Each structure stands twice: as C-alpha cells, then as structure tokens.
C-alpha cells in the first residue's frame, strides 16, 4: 500500500496546533505527517467528515494476568458478543474484558490508536508484553505497580532514599514499563498479612512492621519520578477508593505532591463526601476546584456507565467489599512481595442511589473542569464500564438535552446530592479532541501523538460528521495507523501489531547487589529470570526521560 497520501476537504480538529474545525489538507508520508506530498499521492476526499488525531487512552486494563483471569472468569459475558474474523483480522470475543485481538480492533473501530494498560505487577510484565504482541493495531505501554512493593517499603522506612531512587529505576527498566503506578499504597500488607483488613487513612501506619504511612510512600515516589524526569508522572490510585468521605484523602494525596507533577487515576471514584458506611454525596466541585488551580495535576475521570462492567483492581480489599454487595463470584490473586488483585463481574444500575451518584459525579467533574487538557476521558475500562461506551459518554458531554433525558431514568434522590442537573455546559468537538487525544498525549509526554502537526505519527481518524455524536464516534470511517490505512469505509483492510512504548531511566548497577539477596530470600523465581529481556518487546520505542 502506498504510504503517501493526501487527505483533503475534511474539517480538522487539532487542538495542539490550534486548529478548530478548519478545512485543511493532511499529508502523510512514511508513517508521519508531512508538509506536502507529490502530486501522485493517493487522495482521500474527506468532505463532510471530521479529522482528528488517533485517540489516546491514558488509563485502561486490556492485557496481562488480571485481565486474563477476568476473561477466564466470565465466559457468559462473551458468548453473545462475538468478534468474527475477516480475511485480514483475527477473531475474538468481547464483553467487558475482550480477547486481545478484539480489544485492538475495537479500539481502532472507535478511532483510538494508543492505549495504556494501567496496572501491571512487575512479575506480570512479561505476560503483559506477550499479550501486547497479540493486541493489534494500537500502540501501547503499561504502568508498573510499585506502591505496595515490600523491598521499596523497607528502603523508605530506613530512609535510604538514594537506593530507593536507584531501585525504582531498576524496576522500571526490568519490566519495560512506561511509568510507576501506585494503587492503594500501603494497603496490601493489611490485606494479606492482617486478616483482610485495609488502611483507611493516608497517615495511618502500615507495612509489615506497621511503621510507614501511605503519605510517605506517595511522597517518595512523586519525588523520585519527578527527579528522574519520566515523561508521565506517577499514576496514583488513591487510598479509600469508593468510600464515602474519601475526597479528603484525594485532596491530601494531591497536596502531598506539592507542586510536583502527579496523575490521579479515575478521580470520580475518589470524589465522595459523607460518612464511611453511609451513602456518599458529591464532592466533585471541591475536587475539580483543586485540579483547576493546580497545573501540576492531571487526572482521568473513570466515568461510570450504566450496564455491565468488570471490577478489576490491584486494590484487593476494595474488590472484597464489593463482593459483599454482589454476593457472586470473586477472584483474589496475591503477587509475592509486590501486589494484590481483586476481580468480580459488576453491573451499574440506574435505580440505585450509589451508582447514579457515581455516574453524576463523573459528569460533574468533566463539566466543572476549566482546563480540558488535564481532565482526561476514561471509564477506567472495564471498571466503570467498557471503553466501548466512550461514544455514549461523548454524547453525554456534548448534548445537554440528551443528558437531561438520561437523568429522567436514574435515581432522583442521588441527583439532589450533586449539581449535575444545573450544569449547562456542552463540550465542543475541539474539547472532545482535547480530552480524548491531545490532553492524554500531552500528559503522557508522547510528543508524536495526539496532534496532526508536521512530524507527528500519522495516526489519524476520520469520522462522518453527524448530529448524533454517539453514532458519529462509534465507528470511524477511516483509521490510519502510522500512515497505513487500517480501516477504510468502515472495513478492515489489513492488520498490524502496533508498538510498545517504555522508558529506560538510568541507574547504578550496584543496586542489584542490594536487590539480589532480597530476591533470593523472598521471591520464588531467580533474580536473573525476573527482568524482561528485549525480545518480548518486538516493535518498541523508548521515550526519553529528562
């Protein structure tokens, strides 16, 4: 296929380059956006269509040990959502935890070309990379879970921060991760070692000898990652997810970062007021206000969408609490020395107070945000709902009338405890291009993604312009990945693997002498067999740290 193309007559939305719906030619050569191409370039007429950079998902769960456990757990969720093969593409199955091939093709169908797997235990990194090779079309990367790592906790406790920094960099290199992820920092030890309890306060002492707090852990990581200049800051799932009154913990977590960069994951789940054990109320305004005023903070929303979901989290105690509500099947999977994990099928229901409030808080956060570059669209797929619900979410943001119709069907008491009914704002296509493309790319430090300027990767989506935005964003007419047409006239035309993004911060090898004895004592695999070697990366690119 010719890699030289000219797309003409389309309305271009490219916020990074301040292009807001103007008719503009886009030229592609050798997988990149270029200034101009020869006259014999293939021409695509995008009249009546909208051109955007390929979508970038900053937070989802699509590959690795926990996703695969979820697939094995829920055959019934996939039986009626089949994904047939075409002569060019592989088959698969869907549901809220699609098979690898289905996940890649479905992201592409929505116009997404990059997605980041947001939680991988270090020992699971090799498995994730194996699945990435089978996740077609999209580029991907993952965040490595280090917030409950016992070796690192020991260094924090002993105030050996020099070695802590080296060890963090070693772990990121050993796993080929994109950044560091903290999930309910400090909570694992309570769960595994203290009869399934949890930490409930950011300053509560935890760990094997009950002497470090989540705040100390958060602080150590924020400092280290900022010092080492990762393109994306620590990605933080705060303590107390889902509990009434947790917005205090969220504010305290952001304050702990001071003016250093930090990303708060699925912030909707962390914006609840009220008293523990009682129904929550919305604190979206307080959270949005803090984020608005602090340009060092980015976040993704983790919107709840009604219907089926799969709870899948390294926050094992939370999954256990939810199991108490669903009373159905449940998976817990502990990883030695470094992580926990809980999984269960879940349904968000309109008539329930809690679920409606969660839905409303997510929307409030979007609508109260003053800087769309820093509040990014996500459902924490599949926790708040599938990424396949993104088109509907976009419609909710762009169409106030639709929002009000939807509000008629939900729990009315919950609507009284939030400001959603009063919010009139409607997102524009330009803003949608920010929260789904330009914003996440910027937050990730992926300079060749999320825009259509010269030198950008030619990851391009072309949608038919329609009044119904859900329909419009459900199937892209064309999708180009690295300059190659993957989808043309809604049909797959070829297949491709996509590449893996990771970082390689430098460290002093001497740290291995400190790590090795710990591994020999407490891990069940050999130290030399733990790091992931390059052959698992296939196509990959290292993004520079500062």
């Amino acid at each position: 296929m010719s890699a030289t193309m000219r797309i003409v007559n389309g309305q271009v939305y490219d916020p990074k380059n301040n292009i807001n719906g103007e008719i503009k030619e886009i030229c592609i050569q050798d997988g990149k956006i270029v200034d101009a191409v020869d006259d014999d370039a293939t021409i695509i007429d995008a009249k009546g269509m909208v051109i955007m950079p390929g979508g970038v998902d900053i937070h989802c769960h699509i590959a690795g040990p926990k996703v695969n456990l979820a697939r094995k757990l829920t055959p019934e969720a996939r039986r009626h959502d089949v994904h047939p093969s075409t002569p060019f593409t592989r088959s698969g199955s869907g549901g809220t935890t699609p098979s690898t091939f289905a996940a890649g093709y479905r992201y592409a169908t929505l116009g997404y070309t990059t997605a980041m797997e947001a939680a991988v235990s270090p020992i699971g990194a090799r498995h994730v990379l194996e699945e990435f090779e089978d996740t077609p079309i999209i580029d991907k990367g993952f965040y490595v879970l280090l917030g409950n790592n016992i070796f690192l906790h020991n260094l924090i406790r002993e105030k050996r921060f020099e070695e802590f920094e080296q060890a963090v960099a070693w772990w990121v290199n050993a796993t080929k991760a994109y950044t560091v992820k903290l999930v309910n920092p400090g909570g694992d030890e309570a769960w595994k070692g203290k009869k399934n309890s949890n930490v409930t306060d950011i300053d509560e002492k935890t760990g094997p000898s009950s002497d470090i707090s989540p705040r100390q852990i958060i602080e150590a990581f924020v400092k280290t990652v900022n010092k080492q200049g990762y393109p994306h800051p620590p990605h933080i799932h705060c303590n107390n997810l889902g509990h009434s009154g947790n917005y205090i913990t969220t504010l305290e977590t952001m304050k702990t970062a001071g003016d250093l960069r930090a990303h708060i994951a699925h912030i909707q789940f962390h914006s609840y007021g009220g008293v523990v054990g009682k129904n929550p109320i919305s604190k979206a305004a307080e959270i949005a206000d803090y984020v608005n005023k602090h340009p060092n903070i980015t976040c993704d929303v983790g919107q709840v969408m009604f219907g089926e979901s799969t709870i899948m989290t390294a926050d094992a105690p939370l999954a256990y609490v939810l199991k108490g509500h669903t009373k159905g099947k449940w998976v817990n999977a502990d990883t030695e020395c470094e992580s926990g994990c809980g999984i269960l099928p879940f349904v968000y229901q309109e008539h329930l107070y809690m679920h409606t409030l969660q839905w409303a808080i997510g929307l409030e956060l979007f609508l109260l945000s003053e800087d769309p570059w820093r509040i990014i669209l996500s459902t924490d797929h599949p926790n708040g709902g599938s990424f396949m619900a993104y088109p509907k979410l976009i419609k909710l943001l762009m169409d106030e009338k639709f929002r009000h119709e939807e509000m008629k069907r939900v729990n009315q008491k919950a609507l009284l405890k939030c400001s959603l009914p009063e919010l009139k704002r409607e997102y524009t296509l330009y803003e949608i291009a920010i929260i789904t493309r330009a914003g996440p790319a910027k937050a990730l430090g992926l300079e060749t993604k999320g825009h259509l300027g010269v030198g950008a990767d030619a990851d391009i989506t072309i949608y038919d312009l329609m009044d119904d935005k859900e329909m419009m964003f459900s199937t892209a007419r064309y999708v180009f990945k690295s300059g190659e047409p993957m989808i043309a006239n809604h049909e797959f035309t070829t297949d491709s693997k996509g590449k893996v993004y990771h970082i390689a911060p430098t460290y002093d090898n001497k740290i291995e002498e400190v790590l090795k004895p710990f591994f020999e004592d407490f891990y069940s695999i050999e130290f030399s067999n733990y790091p992931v070697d390059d052959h698992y990366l296939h196509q990959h690119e290292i993004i520079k740290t500062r």
Partner: protein
Amino acid sequence: MTEQKSNKKTEEQNKNIKIVKDATCTFCGCVCDDMELHVDLDEKRIIKAKNACVLGRAWFAEHTIEDAPAALIDGKEVSVEEAVEEAAQTLVKAKFPITYGLSDTTSEAQKQAVAITDYIKGNIDTTTSVCHGPSGLAFQGVGESTSTLGEVKNRADLVIYWGGNPAESHPRHFGRYAVTPKGMFTPNGKKDRTIVLVDVRKTKSAGVADILIRPKPGKDFEVLWALRALVKGISISTDIEKETGVPLEVLTDLVERMKNCRFGVLFFGMGLTMTRGRHFNSGALLALATDLNEYTHFVAKPVRGHGNVTGADNVVSWQTGYPFGVNFSRGYPRFNPGEFTTVDTLSNGDADAAMIIASDPGSNFPKKAIEHLKNIPVVVLDTKSTDTTKLAHVAFKTATYGINTGGTVYRMDDVSIPLRPAFESPFPDDETILKAIKKRVHELILKKNDSRGASGEAKVAAAVNPL
C-alpha cells in the same frame, strides 16, 4: 563414593562442557528455574542437572539428539518445506480440523497454534480438558482466591494438600514453595507451618503431614461441604463419619485451624478433580477457600501437571476469551466443553483432520477416539517418536523446549518464566514449524478470497475517491 566423584570431575574437565545457570525444568508444573545444567557440547547432552529432583534429572538426561529425519509424510522422509506445504494443504482442505495438545511447548508456539486454528476455522483444545478442565469450569462458577507460590513461601502458616501426591508428582513443591522453605513471615520454615494432607490413599506425601485425613473414596465433596457448613457455623451430625470416614472432631479441629491461621492455602490435585464429582469437587474447594476469607486470608491453587499447561490456558484465553475446548467454525470462538473437547470431537467422529502438538493422544485417549484418529489425516509435532507420530500423515520432529530452545513457560501460579536453552538441536522448534504452517495457511486462505475480489488493496482502492 568419593573416588567416583573425583573420577567424574576429571571426566568433566576433559570434555567440552558448558554450564547454564538459572535454567528451567519444564517437566512438571513447578517449573523450577534454578537449574544448573552441565552440558557436554560434543555429545550434545546434559550430563548433570544440579538442583533438579529425580524427575527433572531424568527429563534432562533423556533428551539427547537422535539421528532421525526432521519430517515424514506417510512414514517417508521429506524436506521440512514439503512437510509444511502438505500440512497446510491438509488443514485448509478439512471441514472440521482440530488442534490438540500444547501443554509441552512454549507459549510462543501456542500462540501460533491458536492463530492457525482461527484461520482454518477449526477447533482448538489442550490437555487441560483431560486434567484440570473441571477446575477451570469451577473457576468460572465461583472464582478463586489465589496467590503466587512465593506468597505461600513467605506467609502461609497452614498448608493443606487435597487429592494429590506432590512427593511423587511434583517433588520440589514441598521444598521450594510450600512446606520447608523459610519465608518473610515464616522464618523457621516447616516449624512455622501446619501441614494437612487429605487423600483417600496413603501416599509418599504423607510423611510431611502433621495431620492426615483419609476420606472414603468418592466422598471428597461431602467432606468439603461439611467443612463449608462448619465454617458458616451450621452444625453437622456425627453421622458424617459413617458417610465420609472422617470423624466430626477431625473436621471441627480443621475448621478451627483454618479460621484462625494467618494465611492459609488449599492445594488440590487430580485426585480431587478427576474423581466422582469432578468440577463440583473443585467448586466446593474453591468456595471453601473463598468463605474462609471472612475470617482470615485464605487462598487455593490447583497443582497443575505438565510444564506449560498453564501457558496453554493463558494463551488460548487471551486469544479467544476461553481457556480450552474452543471452536472457530462460525468464524469466531465458541466454548463448549463436552462438545469441543478433543475426546469428544474424535469419539463423535466430527474431526476430519487433526494437528497434534507435543502430546500423545494416540496412547492415552479412549479407544474410540484413537480409532477415529487413525482414520483421518493427522499432522504431528513432537520431540520423540510416539504412538501418535506413528499414525501421522505428516510428522515433524522438533527441538525440545527449555533444552534446545528458549521461549516462555507459565508456572502453575501463572508466573511466566523465560527458558535458557542448553544446546542446539538439528531440528527446528515448534514455533518455527507452526509459523511456517500459519504463513502458508493464511496465503491459501487469502488466495481463495482474492479470487472473489475481496483483497485489502481492493478495499482501500474502492474507498479512495480519485478527484
């Protein structure tokens, strides 16, 4: 004794010996990755496998290079290329081709096998369907509280083995993971743990047990159900002893231990999954472990057999969404054990061609299934000659994973481990052969499509409007 040893030393010194450290034994699901292999490069064999158990030592010793053809069609020697062509043609021609085996090869090879089956719209199944398939079904029903083996070593103070004999089937399970090792919160090893063995037979494993429980054969489910009841505070009649052979006091005592331990683990084997009750047994055990989390931290774990059967489960799951017994005849995966499991597709006479990878159904399947296998064209990949290779239409002799080739293996707890090959084999590995078959199969299928004008280029051309 000493003399013998020193003799051996000089022997080693005179030879062209390579030492491979941290190599991995793939013989059983323990997947021990601490092997130190001494390789005689001249004779192409492993002369010593330090740290291996008796099964592992035998595994490493028996894999020498035989002088044999790399490929056969109907018993006649052919080139690998000819065999690949014949295999691809055979599979594409078939209406109900089946793929089976996969537990003794790398996950890299397993990926290729699923891809081929997807392209030919066939049926794929692994040896899971004849060993821990019931555990997979139980998992789908109730879930599982589980952990990696290192967590057992670090934390477990109550270890229960149910329906297995690891001393003989997984000899290092006790020493490396669950009984004797010293861990973070178990600094005194076995002294910090209580070991319970539940088995209808008295096996070699009984030696490690602090408590031995022997239910009547076929009564595992009843015992598990009584334990669940007791955990929930429901009283049980003393008749339970007549029914199951286990006195009520023994059960009550076990329940107290389970509720009061700090970190408990239930390992279970085929003695539970393949006897009367099958997936109800596994389901009851998984549910028991789940229930106990109300009181303390409790996990359960099937003790899986073959080296990479866990990898097979994982690869088939991530590519199709289902762990085994998957059929692609409608162009997408469907899961139905009992219909799409290999004993059934063969015994019912559905399959009209088969590709068998690293497995020997020709010797261990029911007679009816083997009879059918004899009547259809079979493509076989194996490292050695077996009953199945003997009935093959196309047979490939391949290199042994972990001995001659690298790649990835999943331990029984889903932890992936890289392989470090010891010496080269003249035979290609499974992944290489399967990749070649896949490429050819896909070409043949695209050709069929091209003749109908549905190529990718045609689609792009149609979608592009020349101005």
